[in-house]
């Protein structure tokens, strides 16, 4: 027994993020929302492709984000963007992955550019005679996050009416392989962000997977 750590005052915890939900909500999601005003202020951001906007988010996380940048710079938590991600398929690679070794926790974030409540947010489509998985379906069919229990989708709304897009997508998401508490979660925001909701789904291996859906209004 280490006497030193036994004597630390607990109120009630010694560590800042005592469980993965706290880690996700108070660090990861808070950092995503903190980045919003800086991303939105980038000149010409609305005309950029999805990957370029995602790269701006990565840059913000690593260098400008007061909530999370120190964690990455001190290698307490690791960030991998698409070209560094190690997944089963080289064509289906996660947009962002945040890994906390201390929590033994991995968090995948899928990014999407949206101009309306597109079906590809939820599932794939047939392209050149071949079905291509897309959107949250990648979490449910275990293309992404096979060993994780939570993930997020971060969408960049570059056209249309954001509140309408979010509410329409919320309905579509709730209908896609929902778990028993999906309806309750659909009413919950992510860290009180207006353009957000939550969902949970039953994956192909039977596990329940919780998803945080966040939207940047870049219109």
């Amino acid at each position, binding site marked *: 027994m280490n006497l030193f750590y036994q004597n630390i005052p607990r109120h009630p915890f*010694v560590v800042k993020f005592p469980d993965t939900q706290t880690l996700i909500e108070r660090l990861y999601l808070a950092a995503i929302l903190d980045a919003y005003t800086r991303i939105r202020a980038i000149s010409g951001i609305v005309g950029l492709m999805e990957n370029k906007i995602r790269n701006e988010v990565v840059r913000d996380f690593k260098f400008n984000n007061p909530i999370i940048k*120190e964690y990455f710079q001190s290698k307490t938590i690791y960030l991998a963007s698409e070209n560094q991600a190690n997944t089963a398929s080289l064509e289906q690679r996660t947009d962002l992955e945040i890994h906390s070794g201390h929590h033994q926790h991995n968090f995948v974030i899928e990014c999407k550019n949206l101009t309306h409540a597109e079906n590809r947010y939820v599932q794939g489509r047939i392209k050149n005679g071949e079905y291509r998985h897309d959107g949250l379906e990648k979490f449910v069919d275990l293309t992404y996050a096979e060993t994780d229990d939570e993930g997020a989708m971060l969408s960049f709304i570059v056209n249309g009416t954001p509140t309408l897009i979010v509410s329409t997508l919320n309905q579509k998401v709730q209908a896609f392989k929902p778990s028993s508490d999906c309806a309750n979660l659909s009413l919950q925001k992510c860290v009180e962000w207006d353009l957000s909701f939550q969902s949970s789904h039953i994956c192909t291996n039977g596990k329940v997977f919780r998803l945080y859906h966040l939207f940047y209004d870049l219109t």
Partner: protein
Amino acid sequence: MDLWILKKKPFREFYDIHVHRKDAQVTERDLEAYAQKFKSVFELMLAEHLTLCCEYKVSRQFGAFVCFRIVEKGSKVAAIKRSSIEDSTVFHAIKQTQLEDAYGSNRLNELPTRIYTSECFYLIKSHFFKDWTVRQAIADANEEVKTMIQETQALA
């Protein structure tokens, strides 16, 4: 530009270790910078009601050491200061652990050592600059966070 600034620090430190300050002894200024970085990294994972206080010293007897205490925020304890702890106190702490090992091997190794008492923990290393760099502080602090989590079983 941000990326370049971030990469420049490890390059400069590598150059210092291998060229500019090769085999140089650590200074109190180095120890203060080390303690500052260790504190900032460790506190990334420490609960918000707590803070880490550090004392540092270049010992005349055995390398250099830093001593850390975890206290409640608002306690009247200096965050980082030169230590007034006597060498004999640290030596006694070392004796409790290292000398017991030395009886078996008949050899007293000069290795980086972490010693925990009920009040504080010591990190004791050589008096060379290479052991007390800012990069080393980051690695040591992450290692200590791991120990804290294991010892307190703090994660649900």
